[in-house]
């Protein structure tokens, strides 16, 4: 069971979360939706393509221009309010690790706080509880926000991801977050090299079997690029292959750049799993 503020989903329902960057420097789009106009166009397009959630972020994940809390709020809060006004029923997520930003966006209408840096600001969970918002609990291996892994090693990367995300989720629940709204995310590439991200994908069933809703963020990441030796911009096929494997293992939310393609993969895998009937079956049956 997954609950995103007023909306409830059973375990076989998959959701596409479309990335909307309010940054001038994110790795994939390089500032394409930095201005309000293009950002709104992006929201309208992904909604038309079937996105269930938009994930609005004001700080690039990697090293880059310093963005303090005030600047982050300038980038996302009014935009969240405007998206909420135009799309009253759309689930709005905000990618932030800061409690002060979390509070401001929840007041503006956000439903979900995507804490991509694994509880770095412990007060963010309190904010989620206060607003009955959902919270993504990610595994970063203890990294400081916006830093990459350097020679990180794990005796068992999946065990580490399970232990840390479950601890964060249990802590959030103890503070008042609904268990159906505490989402765990192994966080591919965050505090991990390509081998680690591949192993997390291969063994994702060890996370999905725990009962917490699982989110995966695979889209165009370096583990795809390194595996196939392809630059950003040529990683869609690899992303979709990883998406299919995660869907087979039962992940529920997919944070992506390409919405329509992801939706097709998720529907196809759901039908293979036997939890979604094919759209139209005629062959051999007429």
């Amino acid at each position, binding site marked *: 069971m997954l609950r995103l503020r007023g909306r409830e989903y059973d375990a076989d329902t998959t959701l596409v979360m479309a990335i909307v960057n309010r940054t001038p420097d994110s790795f994939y789009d390089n500032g394409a939706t930095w201005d309000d106009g293009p950002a709104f166009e992006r929201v309208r397009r992904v909604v038309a393509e079937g996105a269930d959630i938009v994930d609005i972020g004001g700080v690039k994940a990697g*090293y880059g221009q310093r963005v303090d809390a005030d600047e982050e709020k300038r980038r996302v809060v009014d935009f969240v309010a405007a998206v909420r006004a135009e799309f009253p029923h759309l689930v709005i997520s905000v990618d932030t690790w800061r409690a002060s930003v979390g509070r401001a966006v929840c007041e503006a209408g956000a439903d979900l706080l995507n804490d991509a840096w694994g509880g770095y600001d412990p007060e963010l969970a309190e904010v989620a509880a206060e607003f009955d918002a959902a919270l993504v609990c990610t595994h970063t291996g203890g990294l400081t926000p916006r*830093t*990459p*892994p*350097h*020679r*990180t*090693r*794990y*005796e*068992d990367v999946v065990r580490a991801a399970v232990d840390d995300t479950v601890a964060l989720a249990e802590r959030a629940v103890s503070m008042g977050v609904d268990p159906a709204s505490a989402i765990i995310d192994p966080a591919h590439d965050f505090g991990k*090299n*390509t*081998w*680690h991200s*591949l*192993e997390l994908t291969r063994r994702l069933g060890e996370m999905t079997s725990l009962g917490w809703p699982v989110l995966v963020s695979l889209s165009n990441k370096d583990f795809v690029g*390194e*595996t196939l*030796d392809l630059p950003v911009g040529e990683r869609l096929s690899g992303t979709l292959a990883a998406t299919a494997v995660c869907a087979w293992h039962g992940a529920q939310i997919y944070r992506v750049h390409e919405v329509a393609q992801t939706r097709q993969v998720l529907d196809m895998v759901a039908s293979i799993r036997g939890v979604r009937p094919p759209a139209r079956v005629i062959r051999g049956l007429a």
Partner: protein
Amino acid sequence: MIVTTVVCPHPPLLLRELGGGQDPLAELRKECGAALEALTGSSPDVLVVIGGHDTSGEHTERIAPVREFGGTGERVPRERTLPPSLGVARRLLDDAGYRGRVEMATVAWDASAAEVGALGRRIAERTERVALLVLGDGSARRGSKAPGYLDERAFALDEEIRRCLSEGDRGGLTRLDPDLAAELMAQGRAALQVMAHALADVGDPVRPEVLYADDPFGVMYFVAVWPCASS
């Protein structure tokens, strides 16, 4: 009595299987091989390895911690594996076909001047023919894609290390600032200083040579050979 000293870096990528289908460090690996040939060819009674790590200590494990970084083989408990820098050394020695006696120890990244001095002197006082292999890297902050992002000071620090290695300047190595090295993620500082102190008795190297000094992925790697007068 030290007969030859060699410096190599210890990126996990020197464990060949971690690089995947292609070898991202083929050129570095070749130069490490050449340096190891010089080291093992100096007819040592014992080969002493010093590598940087979280803590200082002696190690007798045999297995490199490959699986903690990746790969797909069997998982080995951490207590049965070497610290990463020594694991890289073990692999380089195996690749060089070295079958002689090996003693391995780590030195903490943040070891004080007194501690690196004491560790170095303990090696200097040995009476057998000692070949010394030192695992240490330069700064990991040499570009916007580097593990520690760009810090312009990295270039001066690494150039100073390169100069010391190419000129056999032991004093220069002992003067490297531990705090600056730590800020610049130059993990080799302590190990290089142990090396400098270990040569206290045999004196400056003869014909010191830097075989490799480059930063293909934002981390500075050095390969250097210091043949000693006693060789």
